């Protein structure tokens, strides 16, 4: 099964587990399966329109899904999906 890597700041919403195995065939299905199992993640990952928040990136291996087919990107059997929060700011 494909694996989703949960970023450290969101692991308190997944019972402190760092990874989630998914049967999702696309990135969108995989993320939805994750949220269905850990509903407290929803407000941190999705906006009011049920879309990924702008400051959350999703990578398939080392590729940003925005440079692939976004949520429709196919997920291979042993794929590694990373949820990456934006790290930014300033004075």
């Amino acid at each position, binding site marked *: 099964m494909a694996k989703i890597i949960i*970023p*450290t700041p969101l692991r308190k919403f997944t019972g402190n587990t760092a990874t989630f195995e998914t049967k999702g065939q696309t990135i969108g299905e995989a993320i939805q399966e994750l949220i269905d199992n850990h509903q407290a993640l929803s407000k*941190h990952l999705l906006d009011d329109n049920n879309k990924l928040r702008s400051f959350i990136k999703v990578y398939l291996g080392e590729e940003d899904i925005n440079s692939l087919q976004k949520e429709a990107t196919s997920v291979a059997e042993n794929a590694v999906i990373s949820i990456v929060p934006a*790290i930014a700011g*300033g004075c």
Partner: protein
Amino acid sequence: MNTYKISIEEAPLNVIYRHGEKAFPYECCGFLYGDEQNGRRITLAKPVANSKEGDQRRRFEISPVEYMKAENYALENNLSLLGVYHSHPNHPAIASQHDLSVAMPYFSYVIVSVMDGKVADIKSWQLKEDKQEFYEERVKIETDTFSPV
């Protein structure tokens, strides 16, 4: 008055200070690692490049690839990724609206104020549950830590 606290060992503190002064007048940034066995304790600070395009005197950004490397580093070295540090050149160590807008829960956001090239202050912030504002974590500097040769 809150009782939230973050301990930072001398070695990572010096990394943060040196990085802030070296990068001045631009913002520096990096990751903070450690453990939470007896409260949150920072044992390692690792500088990363400020990848913000444009004026880095008022903004910083860490690339997603660097973020993924940081998560891997924590796993491989049995450390917890506990937060991020960055500098505020010629500004106080107060978390800004820009800092708040993309902040994540759980992480400590350590800010070092660098005035005219010299470190002036350090503060740490963590996002409240409601995600609307930060609370300040009292920074405790650990000076009695053992440093292996």
